[in-house]
């Protein structure tokens, strides 16, 4: 994508990949709510669900789209941030421009970087171990991912790390959701105010939804 120099086109890609990731966040959360079932029921069902996901061809295709989205979104964010830095020129001695906007809208790169660092850890600890590591089998003969999740969240610091990353993601979405619609060109005032509200509700719901799982897993064990 290095050849697309135009920043509106680059931002369209960020917006579309960002919205696709938002959709994924919802599905991933709904699937993981199965972890909240009673312990032994959750173990069998969650492991079966994971086995289904890793063997389904359609899910496989979507997952490639997902990896590509994360990559495009991140590369674009780096490209645009560098470009903006160049456009800025020298800085002000006295700078009070912050009064005109929300802090999280100005810190999207910082929040995104936290999310990215988290994704690396998250992939390494679960996705990688599930795919390439050796896990014990449950009574159905499926890999016991549930057991891995349970053990991981025994550590309070690990739970807090998740909490911090999820909070960063929440603020990223608080700005990102409505911003994406503006980027692709939604300019009707009425729909914009609806999208702004939906974005706030969405960001809060995702944040709390994802908060519940690590804290719940910590508490039951």
């Amino acid at each position, binding site marked *: 994508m290095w050849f697309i*120099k*135009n*920043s*509106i*086109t*680059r*931002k*369209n890609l960020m917006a579309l990949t960002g919205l696709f990731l938002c959709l994924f966040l919802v599905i991933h959360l709904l699937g993981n709510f199965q972890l909240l079932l009673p312990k032994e029921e959750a173990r069998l069902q969650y492991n079966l669900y994971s086995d289904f996901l890793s063997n389904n061809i359609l899910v496989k295709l979507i997952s490639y789209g997902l990896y590509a989205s994360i990559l495009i979104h991140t590369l674009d964010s780096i490209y*645009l941030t560098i*470009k*903006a830095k*160049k*456009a*800025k*020129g*020298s*800085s*002000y*001695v*006295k*700078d*009070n*421009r912050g*009064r*005109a*906007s*929300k802090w999280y*809208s*100005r810190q*999207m790169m910082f929040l995104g970087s936290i999310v990215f660092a988290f994704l690396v850890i998250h992939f390494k600890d679960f996705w990688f171990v599930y795919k390439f590591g050796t896990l014990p089998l449950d009574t159905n003969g499926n890999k016991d991912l549930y057991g891995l999740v349970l053990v991981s969240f025994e550590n309070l610091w690990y739970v807090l790390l998740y909490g911090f990353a999820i909070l960063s993601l929440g603020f990223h979405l608080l*700005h990102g959701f*409505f*911003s994406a*619609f*503006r*980027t*692709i*060109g*939604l*300019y009707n*005032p009425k729909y*914009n105010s609806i999208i702004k509200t939906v974005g706030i509700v969405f960001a809060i719901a995702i944040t709390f939804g994802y908060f519940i799982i690590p804290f719940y897993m910590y508490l039951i064990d």
Partner: protein
Amino acid sequence: MVIHLKIWRQKNQHTKGYLESYTLNEVDAEMSFLEMLDSLNLKLAKQGERPVEFDHDCREGICGQCGVMINGIAHGPLKNTSTCQLHMRSFKDGDTIYVEPFKAKAFPVIRDLKVDRSGLDEIIAAGGYISVNTGQAPEANSILVSHEESESAFDSAACIGCGACIATCKNASAALFTSAKISQLAKLPQGQKESSKRTVDMVNRMEELDFGHCTNTEACQVECPQDISVLNIAQMNYEYNKAKLKS
């Protein structure tokens, strides 16, 4: 009232600037900000020093020449007000006021508080007009425009080209300025014909001039003296995407 000033002094584009301190002892609360600077310059001229150069023309909030950063805010503390419409009553006796030029790569400093904003003219020149064959004035009712449409287009047309949006933006994006013209013309039947070409040309020019991209922080509208809506930017994106999808 007594006012302490810290003003950016810079001889030309190629020298480094610095903040110089001045104190004015007889500032009237009813003076405009520019009159206060005039009184400083009078004092400097009497002392044989080089006066502080700053841009201004109409001094009534319509030409867009007077923008400077005042205490780190474009056009100073009052929202939606140009520097020339700001008065010293917005400050307190004994205040220290920082005055700096607008800063962006596309706005090089000419001298002191004066910056070169010709990039904005170049963006307009790239397509911010309607090509018409001159001739007799057409019959007024031959193209119907509703009151709402004309008011909405006029809201966009109110941009005075001051550059505060760019100075305020963390990315030095000219999106608000450029989109105001694009959507003003896209809202009217006379402008719609050329909207695709105009949008692509103006956006490309904006990119070439090293302005940054828009991240929808919405700071620009807050500091814009004309309260130009950020939804103009969304409309620019719409027109741009439409033009690209059609081509």
